[in-house]
């Protein structure tokens, strides 16, 4: 029978020890609290710098034929879009607003500049980066389009060629600016032609599909949940794994490296009691890390993004069930980490051994982002994936989730219990406890017979160990 008082003693000691460890404190508390605000600050500053830089950019554009340079420049500068255009009083309804409000009528703002020039060898200059774009317009371009049209006069479509360097960011920027200006000019000309023929704008727009906000039956929470449903399971599971990593290594390999393990197992305590206490510590720290991460992330997101995301309605109703699901998953990862780290003799080895525990689930979780994958059949009991899919369903506010919820909860609890039992079994093995001895070439007979018994299930792991040892020998040699 397991002695709960001893489990508690191990847990209290390990929590105290871990919370005094600067490395664990940094990884568990400092990083999550500071990371997101700092990240957001850095991103925000970088965006400001990029915006300022973009506004002061100058792009050189060659006009062909050269004699049209001055007219094309005047035209493009008139219709050049300005930064952060505010919508007109009638909103975005094209039927109610003129197709374009010329830029010259708006407040002048700092914006990227297009410097027009003529160039005898424009294509080479563009390839060399001396020019960012070449505008090749037909001779009749300006004169023809600006001339008033008689109602029965026929029109034709003129072709303008825009050359740019698709591999250069500055060239693509110049292309976009020219495109926008010419597009605006085209709409303006169109407006004038319609007016000349006494036609309404509806002549060009026989009907429109109104899919405005009021026609969307999904609640704001559901829409947000749909967006977050694929992202959040990945984030939740990632923070659970990273939260368990540092304490799991410290509580197992740390004991070996500090030479305290022999003292501990010489005390009258069962391996299961030791591993249970350590497991509870790792799970607690992982959950603490996850909670701090999510709180910090949410607060930062709301603080910085609230003014930009007016429609952001977090589906709070999904949160209690999600947190309940994360508990056994946190237990599962904590136990797996402990089991893997118990094999290791030093920190470096431990980091290699835990690698599959966080790489494999993260790759597997990409399934959540695939549309059409539903939580049913074998996926109901697929470890980790079932929790991720269920969280997605919860955020989408799907009905009838009680049965899948129970399936996922019970199966994950069973996996967690099995992982704890595996960790305890590994921890009790002589060759794991006295690995320095084992490294010198010895395994106990009991251990070796155990190894033979479990060879089929553990062959890969031991082969991996063997190769890692050989690898280190070769490196040392």
């Amino acid at each position, binding site marked *: 029978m397991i*002695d709960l*008082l*001893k489990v508690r*003693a*191990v847990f209290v*000691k390990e929590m*105290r*020890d871990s919370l*005094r*460890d600067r490395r664990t404190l940094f990884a568990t508390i400092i990083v999550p609290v500071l990371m997101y605000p700092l990240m957001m600050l850095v991103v925000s500053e970088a965006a400001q710098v990029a915006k300022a830089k973009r506004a002061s950019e100058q792009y050189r554009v060659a006009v062909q034929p050269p004699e049209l340079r001055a007219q094309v420049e005047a035209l493009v500068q008139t219709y050049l879009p300005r930064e952060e255009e505010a919508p007109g009083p009638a909103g975005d309804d094209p039927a109610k607003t003129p197709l374009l409000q010329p830029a010259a009528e708006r407040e002048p703002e700092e914006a990227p500049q297009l410097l027009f020039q003529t160039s005898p060898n424009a294509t080479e200059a563009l390839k060399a980066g001396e020019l960012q774009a070449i505008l090749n317009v037909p001779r009749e371009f300006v004169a023809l389009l600006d001339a008033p049209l008689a109602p029965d006069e026929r029109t034709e479509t003129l072709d303008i060629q825009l050359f740019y360097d698709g591999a250069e960011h500055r060239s693509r920027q110049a292309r976009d600016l020219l495109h926008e200006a010419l597009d605006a000019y085209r709409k303006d000309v169109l407006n004038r032609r319609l007016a000349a023929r006494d036609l309404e704008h509806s002549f060009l727009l026989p009907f429109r599909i109104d899919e405005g906000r009021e026609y969307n039956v999904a609640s704001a929470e559901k829409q947000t949940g749909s967006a977050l449903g694929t992202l959040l399971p990945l984030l939740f599971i990632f923070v659970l794994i990273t939260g368990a990593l540092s304490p799991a290594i410290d509580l197992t390999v740390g004991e070996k490296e*500090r*030479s*305290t393990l*022999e*003292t501990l*197992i*010489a*005390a*009258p*305590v*069962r391996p299961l009691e030791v591993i249970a206490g350590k497991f509870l510590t790792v799970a607690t720290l992982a959950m603490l890390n996850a909670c701090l991460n999510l709180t910090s992330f949410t607060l930062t997101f709301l603080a910085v993004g609230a003014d930009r995301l007016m429609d952001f309605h977090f589906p709070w109703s999904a949160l209690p069930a999600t947190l309940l699901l994360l508990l056994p998953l946190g237990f599962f990862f904590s136990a797996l980490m402990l089991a893997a780290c118990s094999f290791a003799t030093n920190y470096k080895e431990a980091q290699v051994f835990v690698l599959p525990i966080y790489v494999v689930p993260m790759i597997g979780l990409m399934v959540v982002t695939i549309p059409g994958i539903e939580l049913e059949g074998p996926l109901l009991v697929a470890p980790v994936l079932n929790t991720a899919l269920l969280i997605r369903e919860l955020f989408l506010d799907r009905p009838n989730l009680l049965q899948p919820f129970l399936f996922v909860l019970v199966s994950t609890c069973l996996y967690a219990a099995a992982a704890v039992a595996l960790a305890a079994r590994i921890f009790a093995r*002589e060759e794991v*406890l*006295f690995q320095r001895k084992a490294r010198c*070439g*010895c*395994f*106990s*007979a*009991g*251990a*070796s017979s155990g190894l033979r018994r479990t060879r089929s299930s553990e062959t890969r792991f031991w082969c991996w160990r063997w190769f890692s040892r050989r690898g280190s020998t070769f490196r040392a040699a």
Partner: protein
Amino acid sequence: MIELQDIHKVFLTHEGRELRAVDGLSLRVGRGEIYGLLGPNGAGKTTTLRMLAGLIAPTSGRLAVDGHVAFDMSRHVEDPLSLKHRIGFLTAKTGLYGRLTPRELLRYFGELRGIPRADLEAQIEKLIAALGIGEFADRRCEGFSTGQQQRVQIARTLVGEPPVLVLDEPTNGLDVLTNQLILKFITEAGRGGRTVVISTHHLDEVEEVCQRFGLIHKGRLLAEGTLDELRATTGRERLSGCFRELVARVDPEAIPQVALPGVAGGGGAA
């Protein structure tokens, strides 16, 4: 008090070869006796002590402490937990939890021994006073000198007042002053009625402390007795001489014959 009967411990090497670390070892240690377990490197001392401390199980044989059978492999009896309750285990190699204070560390190991809280606190205060730990009892162990660490280790070993102490090379790598502390601790433990089994390479240190000695080599007991009995058997005065003589009789190659250029009389006197 301690009884080992035909104890074997077999390890498998990476090559799949059997390695007999302990090969039919039998010995008895009486209550209150200080017993020195001696032997060259690789003789099986540490393996024997680890089995005695309940850290590993013998492959075969019977091991009993204080009348309680902890291992009887022929009858599939394995009860290391009861053995650990009766044993205090100390080595020079083991470290302390650097982020705990000595008081917290003693409390932790007391709780693992299942000592009631009130008794435990009284024991801790007694140990702190007896070993002169009071000055640093509430400071974290991470900056302690070797002597301070060993005092805390001794106190940790004595928490729960185990009747048997198993000491595996407890003075290995320690300075003279800390050595003396350990030897004093062993003597006091013997006077207090505790049974002590000690393994060491520092034979001159233990020849005055131990009442009986057992010499093992290649996992087998070569000889056993008091210092006088060993002297009579070997004709040597010092324990180190007896040791060399006994090993040389069964395995002359185990005694290194190194002739260093320019150094005369490398054999040493016993």
